[in-house]
């Protein structure tokens, strides 16, 4: 089936070809340095304002611009996190002028350029929505074990939950919470303009966690990250962007001799006390010395060694620049033999074949091998068997037997992208991004011959292949309509194609011991799944700027998608925004440096699943291997995307000579035509749910950020900051359904957060000596309704820096399947005394709540579904820049870092850990803790040398 929108989009593309040319004379040279350290700043752009002229500094911070027309000009330097600096220069015919820049740090820079969701390059002052940026310098200030660590605790509205303490496990990432019931809530991820796989890889019930493809990104390759959080900002990305967009920009080369950088990191993962404080054995995990199969150190936990080695080089000439990097890492989990080992290489190349043409070719490959241990809701899981003690499944209570199971994942991940920027004139830009993200993920699960649970053994091997292709064209034209009024037009077209291939093999009943393949089994099975789909769209955007202080923007995105029903046309997504730099008026007080008011409205969407619009049957087998069919999908030819409409407004500004930064955003999302898996009336015969555009959800919140430079002196530069954000989702209409169960006693129900816990709890908790009266009640949202962060950075003598990040999440509840199941088995420490009383018939002084929690006759999951608020010290890092005079001749710089992660947790949650999650696959909407390894602590030391 060919989607008719393809031709339409391609036709639009034909309209988008422009030509122009320009010329110049003269030369300007100079150097760009950091004001605080006098170190040179490589790869920063220096441009001649108003002319289509500019260059990037080389590795030594120097620059040279030839053929500048004689006469007076203004030079401008923009660099993320630093004040935009302009300097006048007069070029004399045939002579060279020298202009040096010294960049000062800035908490907010209105002229810094952002590109994510803007339709072209845009200055922050022109943007009507909030946007978050994270720089490489910020990333270096905290230990990064996985992609979630890049984002965690950084900014308001970004929620990252560590799901597991297993090395290599992915995190749950949400931008402004949940606004979709059925189509996932993960943000889209772009790397250098190429869309990459953002969902976690497939999980498996044996390990109950899933590795994240985002962990394949080498953190040391990242130059900066831009994050736009809601539909008001992601409209131009169209269908599938309602969960927000995260764009990662990797490092580039720069002119000059090769500049090498090498970093070595050593450290360990460590698990603190697990379970109730009163139990000194940590549920038999911290101390298992009296248990069969216990490791020789007397604990199931170890200090898991972690190590990584990063080497990179950047350099180039005027025509060609390069950035090459390589990484080798290995991280051991806190329980042997779990580990995750990886290597990654990157080659970013920049070509400048003509003055106004820039070509970048970015390539990255990574490989990761992870050995997992059986975990979670799994009769062969380690924690389940250890924590249940003699009530577990292992013969003779020797829980080490479960570790005979071999669980491996291997990932090959390749991303390549071509970025072409053509500026035929100073006011016109054409940009093409084309790229491929290809990932191959292999999961193998083997129970060896003689394994206690399946004595004859079995093996499963699942191979997943993901291919994402991006083609993105965008153009922009700036025109000055009058001395006060400026016009910026943008247009573009995108095509995105994805395919997914899954091959599964299963073999069981081995003839004997030894390494196996699937076909070693006497009985084998195979499965195959192949799905491909594509989307395409184009956009138009017009912005007017008045006196460079008031900006009005309107845009429209039109999208087609191959999964839309035959009766559905193009999906339109409009956007409007305004930003107003009120601080640029003369009446504005001097002490209040900058103040931008902003408001944005926009829509984005989520596409239905492939083939949801068509009535289909599945091929199955029956009658012992005979071909058969069974109903699959009812089909809905009217199926379209669900759309999220968002309004956000707020302000951002700095005070007191840039020492105080404040930002406030209020957002209000409404998802309409929400895709709901509607249950057909079962008695009509086809019970499988069918996606229908019938739902409606709301999602609201406030995000506030405050950063202060408390001191800025030679001896001490001290910055503190914090943020708080709220998020309240609500199901409004489920297309007539009263309730949608998503498992583990969590539901989507009108009038309640998406999703929420409902279950039986005691209604007479304080009655002494009474029988508990149990009743189903609303227990709370499954996701945090508020997050907050505190951070501090103190630099002493410009060499020694202490960085601290703390984060809290709360307002939600979490069900501890661990506590509930152990209570039922009479092996949960906090219930031991009460259960002894109950066994003795001495219940007279027990409250109904005591019995509902601990009496096996009454205990429910609901009673162990409790508030999961927590605060964690996410990271603490001490960095020391060694004085150059102490370094060998060829070494330009060296930094020592001592870093720690998840140092401590403050929580009243009674289960294992408030972040622990039973299903690490990002697509899961529910949250549940069930014998999962909690997030671990990390301590590491690193040395980075530049030479």
């Amino acid at each position, binding site marked *: 089936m060919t989607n008719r929108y393809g031709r339409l989009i391609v036709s639009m593309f034909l309209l988008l070809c422009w030509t122009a040319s320009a010329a110049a004379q003269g030369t300007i040279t100079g150097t760009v340095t950091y004001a605080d350290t006098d170190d040179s700043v490589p790869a920063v752009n220096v441009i001649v304002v108003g002319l289509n002229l500019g260059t990037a500094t080389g590795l030594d911070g120097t620059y040279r611009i030839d053929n500048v027309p004689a006469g007076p000009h203004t030079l401008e330097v923009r660099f993320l996190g630093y004040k935009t600096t302009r300097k006048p220069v007069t070029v004399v015919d045939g002579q060279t002028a020298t202009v040096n820049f010294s960049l000062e740090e800035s908490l907010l820079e209105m002229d810094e350029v952002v590109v994510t969701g803007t339709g072209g390059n845009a200055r922050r002052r022109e943007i009507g929505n909030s946007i978050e940026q994270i720089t490489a310098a910020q990333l270096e200030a905290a230990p990064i074990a996985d992609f979630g660590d890049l984002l965690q605790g950084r900014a308001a509205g970004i929620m990252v939950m560590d799901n597991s303490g297993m090395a290599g496990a992915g995190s749950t990432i949400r931008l402004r919470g949940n606004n979709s019931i059925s189509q996932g809530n993960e943000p889209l991820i772009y790397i250098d303009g190429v869309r990459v796989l953002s969902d976690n890889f497939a999980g498996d019930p044996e390990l109950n966690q899933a590795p994240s493809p985002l962990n394949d990104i080498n953190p040391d390759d990242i130059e900066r990250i831009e994050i736009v959080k809601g539909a008001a900002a992601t409209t131009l990305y169209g269908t599938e962007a309602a969960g927000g967009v995260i764009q990662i920009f990797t490092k580039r080369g720069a002119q000059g001799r090769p500049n090498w950088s090498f970093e070595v990191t050593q450290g360990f993962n460590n698990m603190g006390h697990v379970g109730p404080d009163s139990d000194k054995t940590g549920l038999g995990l911290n101390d298992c010395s009296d248990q069969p199969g216990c490791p020789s150190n007397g604990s199931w936990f170890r200090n898991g060694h972690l190590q990584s080695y990063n080497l990179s080089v950047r350099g180039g000439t005027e025509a060609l620049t390069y950035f090459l990097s390589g990484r080798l890492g290995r991280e051991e989990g806190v329980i042997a033999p779990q580990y995750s080992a990886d290597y990654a290489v990157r080659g970013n190349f920049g070509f400048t074949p003509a003055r106004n043409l820039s070509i970048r070719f970015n390539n990255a490959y990574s490989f990761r091998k992870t050995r997992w241990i059986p975990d979670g809701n799994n009769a062969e899981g380690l924690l389940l068997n250890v924590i249940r003690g003699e009530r577990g499944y292992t013969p003779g209570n020797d829980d080490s037997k479960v570790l005979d199971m071999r669980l491996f994942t291997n990932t090959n991940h390749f991303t390549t992208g071509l970025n072409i920027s053509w500026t035929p004139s100073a006011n016109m830009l054409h940009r093409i991004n084309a790229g491929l993200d290809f990932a191959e993920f292999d999961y193998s699960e083997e129970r060896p011959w003689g394994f206690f649970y399946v004595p004859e053994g079995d093996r499963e091997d699942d191979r997943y292949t993901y291919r994402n292709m991006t083609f993105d064209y965008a153009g922009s034209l700036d025109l000055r309509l009058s001395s006060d009024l400026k016009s910026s037009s943008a247009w573009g077209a995108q095509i995105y194609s994805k395919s997914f291939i899954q091959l599964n093999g299963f073999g069981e009943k081995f003839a004997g011991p030894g390494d196996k393949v699937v076909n070693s089994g006497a009985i084998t099975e195979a499965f195959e799944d192949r799905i491909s789909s594509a989307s395409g769209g184009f956009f138009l955007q017009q912005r007017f700027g008045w006196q460079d202080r008031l900006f009005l923007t309107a845009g429209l995105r039109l999208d087609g998608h*191959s999964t839309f029903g035959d009766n559905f046309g193009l999906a339109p997504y409009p956007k409007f925004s305004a930003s107003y730099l009120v601080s640029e008026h003369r009446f504005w007080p001097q002490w209040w440096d900058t103040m931008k008011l902003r408001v944005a409205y926009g829509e984005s969407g989520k596409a239905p699943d492939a083939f949801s619009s068509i009535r289909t049957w599945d091929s199955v087998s029956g009658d012992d291997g005979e071909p058969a069919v069974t109903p699959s999908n009812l089909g809905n030819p009217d199926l379209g995307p669900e759309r999220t409409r968002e309004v956000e407004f707020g302000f951002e500004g700095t005070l007191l000579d840039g020492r105080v930064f404040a930002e406030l955003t209020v957002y209000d999302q409404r998802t309409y035509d929400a895709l709901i898996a509607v249950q057909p009336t079962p008695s009509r*015969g086809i019970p499988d749910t069918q996606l229908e555009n019938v739902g409606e959800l709301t999602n609201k919140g406030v995000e506030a950020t405050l950063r202060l430079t408390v001191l800025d002196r030679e001896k001490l530069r001290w910055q503190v900051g914090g943020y708080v954000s709220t998020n309240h989702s609500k199901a409004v209409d489920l297309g007539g359904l009263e309730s949608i169960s998503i498992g583990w006693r969590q539901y989507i129900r009108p009038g309640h957060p998406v999703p929420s816990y409902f279950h039986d709890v005691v209604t007479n908790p304080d009655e002494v000596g009474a029988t508990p009266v149990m009743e189903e009640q609303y227990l709370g949202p499954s996701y945090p309704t508020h997050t907050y962060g505190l951070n501090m950075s103190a630099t002493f003598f410009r060499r020694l820096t202490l960085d601290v990040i703390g984060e809290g999440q709360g307002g939600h509840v979490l069900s501890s399947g661990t506590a509930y199941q152990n209570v039922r088995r009479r092996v949960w420490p906090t219930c031991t005394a009460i259960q002894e009383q109950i066994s003795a018939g001495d219940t007279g002084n027990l409250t109904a709540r005591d019995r509902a929690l601990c009496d096996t006759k009454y205990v429910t999951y609901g009673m162990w579904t409790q508030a999961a608020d927590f605060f964690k010290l996410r990271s603490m890092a001490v960095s020391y820049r060694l004085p150059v005079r102490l370094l060998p001749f060829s070494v330009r710089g060296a930094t020592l870092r001592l870093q720690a992660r998840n140092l401590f947790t403050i929580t009243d949650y009674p289960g294992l850990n408030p972040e622990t999650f039973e299903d690490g696959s990002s697509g899961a909407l529910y949250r549940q803790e069930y014998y999962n390894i909690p997030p671990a602590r990390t301590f590491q030391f690193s040395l980075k040398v530049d030479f």
Partner: protein
Amino acid sequence: MNNRTPFQRRLGRAGIVLLLACTLAACNVFDVKNPGKILDEDLNNERAIRALVVGMSADFSVVYDDLGFIVARLSDEMAASGSYFLSTRARFGIIESDDTDFYWEGLHQARFVAENGLVRMEDVLGDQFNGNPLTARAYFFAGLANRALGEAFCQVTYEGSEPLPKAAAFERAVGHFTNAISQAQQAGENDLLLAAYGGRAQAHVGLGDWASAVADAQQLSTDFAYEAIYSDNSGRESNEIYDETHQRYEMSAFGALAGSFDPPDPRAPYTDCRVDDDCSTNIGADGSTFHLRQEKYNALGSNIPVVKGTEMRLIEAEALWEQGNLDAAMAKINEVRAFFDLDPLTATTREEVFDVLDKERHLTLWLEGRRLFDLHRWDHPFLRGGGVVYEGIDNRASCLPIADSECQTNPNVSC
């Protein structure tokens, strides 16, 4: 030196863009592919009918083993010694609408696939519809799904109707079995013919029509058996009861009638995992109940009987008991016991004979998904607080309530 005119340059650029556009269109960039699926209209093909009918058998098997699993835990067949949420409720005799979606939807799918498939078959096969063995088999599964629906659920609905009594399902089953008998006779399919008679006898029992039930039952010899097919060929085809008792420990014969025999009754075989090294554990998933592992289904591919001659003898016995002909009833019961090489039993009073009949049906139909309906139609004392290992509630569930998914989508039904 570039000597092209501006127009030529623009034309060249337009050509490149056009080439790119044509390439994208030719590559079918906007295709959506999912090759494992079969379009509905593609089944309107004579060659696809066999797969359609095998699908009827497969869809019935998919739900029937799960039905046997829940019936065993809800009734007195097995101790619900597991850790599943439903196991913990079933052991007390509790089951509610939001527990029964899977069984309700599965049985209705099996029914719909057969009934709707027959409409498609008639259209596609034309003159070849009547007398076709596939037609006979399709009618049989339509009857079987309705019989199971009637036995398992307290009430039924069809096509979004108001709740109807169980009898509606049994009457529908009788109609389908009658057609199956006719088609099997025309096709010369003797096994299917006998199975259809047996199925109709079961449906007549559901209706309380003992004369018709006996008339059909008498068509079957004691050694006849027709089974729902299971296989280790694929996970979908495997027998769930085996999986839940051999690879998990969700129910046990400990404390149940079957577990009281040592050595086990041949109709209800089990392994005592307390003394047998073959088991990987001796305790159920509840962490406390000894695991007496059923061995009636000792492999993933163990079939589950749906019509048996031994049941027919017990139907005849029950009909005789209803008539007060107790000696004749015991004779029929002992025919069954003789078939299993068991010693004959004696009973003289109406209560004693019923007690024997109760136990004999219990053991003969053990783990075949039938016991709950016997408890229901007999208003069995077990329903009043009875339990296996765990003490049950008074007024235990004797049938499954209409599923929550039906209540949410059918305006004629409320839960």
